[in-house]
């Protein structure tokens, strides 16, 4: 079993996301440490991309700030290496980035470096099932899970996607892009039921979740809950002082889904 799958073995998993390099990589690293302390089961590290087409304004702006501040793929690898070797981070970590960041680096070279640094998997929102082979084979060679996404519009595609999924399955809660939403109207339980019929891979729900109440509700139908924009917003608000606030927030979410 992969490290990622193990993250879902101890009750409901809380999965925080953070954009690397906003405001700087030292702050990102400290936030990751706080996330682990607060009980995060798995951490998503966003490698910033100039044109993140699946992202709403919060993460898009954070990505642009990070690039502006000089964040690069190589610097993110270095941060991950430090988290693993010097900062005591042991929870599984996955990269979330866009196809071109991986492709232009060289898929093989990217996977090798990610794996050496201590990454467990990758989420590429612009690589659907039809295009995954180009990435997936190489990921597997380096022990990385390429995470599959399922959307409210996936319908009859769910079984096909779930059958080949590894690590966990990312269930997109709503239409549209990432961002905080006041209400989630998708029939999540029925999507999860279709996934369960085809696969034992754990499911986590993301997109739009921000409050402990939403997390609590979502966690009832799945194995985990993913939160991005709400955390990235905290980082935008508190800058270098963010780690403490991010830790508190993650703790409140972890407690809510216990």
């Amino acid at each position, binding site marked *: 079993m992969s490290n990622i799958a193990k993250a879902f073995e101890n009750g409901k998993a809380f999965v925080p996301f953070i954009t690397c390099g906003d405001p700087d990589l030292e702050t990102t690293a400290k936030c990751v440490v706080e996330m682990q302390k607060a009980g995060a089961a798995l951490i998503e590290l966003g490698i910033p*991309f*100039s*044109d993140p*087409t*699946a992202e*709403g*304004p919060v993460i*898009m702006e954070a990505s*642009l700030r990070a*690039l502006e501040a000089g964040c*690069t*793929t*190589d610097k993110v690898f270095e941060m991950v290496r430090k988290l693993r070797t010097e900062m005591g981070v042991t929870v599984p970590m996955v990269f979330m980035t*866009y*196809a*071109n*960041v*991986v*492709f*232009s*680096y060289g898929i093989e070279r990217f996977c090798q470096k990610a794996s050496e640094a201590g990454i467990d998997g990758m989420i590429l*929102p*612009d*690589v*659907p*099932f*039809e*295009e995954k*082979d*180009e990435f997936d*084979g190489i990921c597997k060679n380096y022990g990385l899970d390429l995470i599959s*996404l*399922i*959307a*409210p*519009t*996936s*319908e009859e*595609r769910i079984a096909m*996607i779930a059958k080949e999924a590894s690590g966990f399955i990312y269930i*997109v809660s709503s*239409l*549209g*892009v990432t961002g905080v939403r006041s209400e989630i109207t998708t029939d999540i339980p029925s999507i999860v039921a279709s996934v369960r019929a085809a696969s034992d891979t754990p499911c986590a729900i993301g997109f739009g979740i921000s409050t402990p109440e939403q997390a609590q509700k979502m966690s009832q139908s799945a194995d985990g809950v993913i939160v991005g924009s709400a955390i990235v917003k905290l980082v935008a608000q508190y800058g270098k002082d963010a780690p403490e606030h991010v830790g508190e927030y993650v703790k409140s979410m972890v407690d809510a889904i216990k």
Partner: protein
Amino acid sequence: MPESKGRFGRHGGQYIPETLMNAIIELEEAYNHYKDDPEFNKELTELLNDYAGRPSNLYFAKKMTKDLGGAKIYLKREDLNHTGSHKINNVLGQALLAKKMGKTRLIAETGAGQHGVATATAAALFGMECVVFMGKVDTERQALNVYRMKLLGADVVPVTSGTATLKDAVSECMREWTTRIDDTHYCLGSVMGPHPFPTIVRDFQAVISRESKAQVLEKEGRLPDYVLACCGGGSNAIGSFYHYIEEEGVNLIGCEAAGRGIDTFETAATINTGRIGIFHGMKSYFCQDEYGQIAPVYSISAGLDYPGIGPEHAMLHDSGRAQYVAVTDEEAVNAFEYLSKTEGIIPAIESAHAVAHAMKLAPTLPKDKIMIITISGRGDKDCAAIARYRGENINE
């Protein structure tokens, strides 16, 4: 490795979020059904002829030919189409398809505003809702077209993210489409994006070379030696090339926007300065940095100011079947003025990039060579910006 759908050599594909996959599959199925449907094609032909004014003329540019002193030059006059550019060819096709699919709302990106105007026009004609996304920078340099779109009943949304130009407008359209799929068709304006768009748009633009081939055969009794077109995403270029691709003697030349020069950072010449990547749903060539971050491109022409190029062009470049040259702002502005004064035709600044290359190439060729330049659009929309470029301020 199994090849995914919609490949042009190693380019193309469908690199889009899962949320859009079923919409894209639905579009592909609908297109495959209607593209050979006699009723659909009859309706489309009627629209193209009676509404858009096709066929467009193949005009012998006698004065220009004489002045340049080399190859015999013909202009394929897409500027004479209703709404003033080739964009209407694709839009009427896609809008009709969207209507057959039961969609009631069109969204579109636009750079120069020509595709936005064409989409707003088709939406007005078909009684559909229309929202056009346009980079804030472009709404300023193409103010006239913003007004035209609003007049036609469309909502124009200025996009402020990123470089606030065409690429950001495309990104914003993709975001909007993932939010609202059921009633909405994304009317993509060039031969780019995820499969099936590069194929659909190419097929609808292929009318350009279908006509020009018949026209040149009638006028000259033979095929041309050169076909030139400007190339942003590449829709007028692929339309101009398509029916000549199999004709080996016909040289195909795409003219990219070099902006201030391909040795500067202020350029949009994708094939000349980019490398292979994955963006906006497709694998193709893109202007990008060493880490794959998309480069902020620049051209005086809002319609060519895009960091990528359609996957079929990327393939034609790889195979050497077509050649892609870079034309600077200065050369394009000179050509804009030259064609206006020489032939009494004010070309779009995009099209002026093709004219500029012809001005370099034609004098080097013998008089018995034949060249067709696609004038993809008319230049009224550009007059204020060109005046500004020349240091003159006019009120539109």
